């Protein structure tokens, strides 16, 4: 490992420490919010956790997909995904797990878990016929079992993807590639089911009346977009004074750029399809979810969430889409980095758009509720939690990089990957 690389990895304790401090602060705010029966700071912790969960699930899927397809370009980049995904179970354990297992937080965030919770209609959640019909799935015990299952599943899968790959560095056995190929072939369909359930439980169930069968696919599309954007940012940094210096070439950037373009289109396709079906069918039990994100229930005018949705269409889809159409955007490092940053920021906003707006009981409002706004103190705690979890992920990433070769030197396709050509 070169001097600049070891200088980079030696920072892991500092970065991890900063992350822990930020996360402790976010959790402290969540506990303060608990006293005032304010769900917003707890939601920030959940969002910080889910943002990185999503990104790391994306990296896990990319790791498995490149394994299954024996992608020749992948090994030098995949090793960094393997370093990253080690943080996935940690992120879940520091965020979703305590939020779901501590009853006060669970009742605050997932209102349906609290039978005594009062709805805007004046009834209790426990008497809601819509919830009663879904009770076989949405009940507290099964919910907690599923949350535990996600941690175990992703823990085992990330452990497997890392362990055999790192083993290959020392024992130089090609059969580990076959083992990982088999793990990935099973892991992709299972992972698809588990990430769909995770999206249903952690995000869609925040508004338990609403349902969308596209939701899991949307979560997957967002995950891959975030993973690719983060990969571009990470590899840019690592090729300027890190272990990818002189290794990452134009063809690698081109591949990442093409994938970013493909998944930008895929995300737009899924997000639009979900909106389009609900718009066309025009059924109140589905449309209310989008109405909450378009109108202020008090004034009846467009709310700030409408502005957010326009930003998602034009800033998170159209801008990166048009920019990535051009060949030079995919190969010039600075341009690709800029687009990746745009996607990374847009991904945060998309997650907020999906999770934050909810009905807040307010007897003085004409409809009996208001909607949580976009621009508020909550946005700051969201960013604090995202930064906290992010620093923990990066700290653990750098720590992993001290434990194994930063380039998978004995991967059977390593030469193909290093000499990868467009």
């Amino acid at each position, binding site marked *: 490992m070169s001097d600049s690389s070891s200088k980079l990895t030696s920072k892991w304790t500092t970065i991890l420490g900063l992350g822990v401090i930020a996360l402790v602060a976010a959790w402290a705010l969540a506990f303060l919010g608990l006293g005032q029966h304010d769900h917003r700071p707890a939601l920030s912790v959940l969002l910080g956790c889910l943002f990185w969960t999503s990104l790391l699930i994306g990296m896990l899927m990319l790791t498995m997909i490149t394994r299954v397809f024996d992608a020749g370009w992948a090994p030098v980049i995949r090793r960094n995904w393997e370093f990253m995904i080690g943080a996935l179970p940690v992120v879940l354990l520091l965020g979703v797990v305590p939020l779901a297992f501590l009853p006060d937080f669970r009742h605050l965030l997932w209102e349906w878990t609290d039978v005594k919770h009062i709805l805007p209609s004046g009834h209790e959640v426990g008497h809601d016929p819509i919830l009663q019909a879904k009770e076989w799935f949405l009940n507290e015990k099964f919910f907690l079992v599923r949350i535990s299952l996600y941690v175990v599943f992703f823990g085992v899968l990330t452990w497997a993807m890392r362990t055999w790959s790192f083993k290959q560095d020392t024992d130089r056995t090609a059969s580990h590639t076959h083992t990982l190929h088999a793990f990935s072939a099973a892991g992709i369909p299972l992972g698809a089911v588990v990430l769909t359930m995770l999206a249903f439980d952690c995000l869609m169930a925040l508004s338990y009346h609403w349902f969308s069968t596209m939701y899991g696919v949307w979560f997957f599309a967002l995950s891959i977009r975030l993973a690719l954007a983060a990969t571009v940012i990470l590899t840019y940094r690592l090729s300027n004074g890190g272990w990818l210096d002189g290794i990452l070439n134009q063809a690698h950037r081109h591949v990442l750029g093409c994938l970013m373009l493909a998944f930008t289109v895929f995300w737009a396709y899924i997000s*639009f399809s979900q909106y*389009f079906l609900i*718009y*066309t069918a*025009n059924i109140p039990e589905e449309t209310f979810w989008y109405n909450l994100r378009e109108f202020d229930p008090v004034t009846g005018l467009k709310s700030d969430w409408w502005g957010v949705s326009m930003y998602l269409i034009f800033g998170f889809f159209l801008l990166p889409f048009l920019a990535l*159409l051009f*060949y030079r955007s995919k190969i010039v490092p600075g341009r690709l980095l800029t687009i990746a940053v745009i996607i990374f920021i847009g991904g945060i906003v998309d997650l907020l758009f999906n999770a934050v707006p909810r009905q807040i009981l307010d007897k003085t409002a004409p409809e009996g509720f208001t909607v949580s706004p976009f621009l508020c103190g909550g946005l700051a705690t969201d960013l604090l939690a995202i930064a906290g979890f992010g620093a923990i992920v990066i700290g653990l990433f750098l720590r992993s990089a001290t434990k194994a070769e930063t380039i998978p030197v004995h991967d059977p396709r390593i030469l193909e990957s290093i000499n990868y*050509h467009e």
Partner: protein
Amino acid sequence: MNERNERIFGVACTFRKPADVFHAAEKVRDAGWTRWDVHTPFPIHGMDQAMGLPRSKVPRLTLLGGVTGFITGCLLTWYMNSYDYPLIVGGKPYWSAIYPFPIMYECTILFAAFGTFFGQFILNRLPHHHHPLFELPNFARVSDDTFMVVLEAHDPKFHVDDSRNFLQSLGGQEITVIRD
């Protein structure tokens, strides 16, 4: 261009190894040739750069097709549903950007595909039923074990004897003048 060159398509020259034809291509490129080609039994990585080929212009035609398709889709749905025969379907507006979006998007893809397909047809000057190189007895071997560089007569640098000598200097094996 003199009388003699008009009946000549160009000069072909064979090579035995990929590395030889690769370096020959670099020298032809550096000598400033524009109308010439390399024929190989399999793709050789880096040959584009060795030949100094620019990127294909097909993507521009794809984009042009896509934009045309999107506008066509917009106009089509607006004209039919909002102008020519206004009709309310499912309580939706006569025209908005949402309900006809699948049509706009399908038109975008269809026209982009047309742009790509016909674009490459035009840029490759297809259909092309015959080519003077097919008259060359050993041309079939470039799909087997031979590599070939062909300098074409309509290049401003072309002159039969000079070109032949140039190819010889590059280490070519069999040099043949191709009649048109």
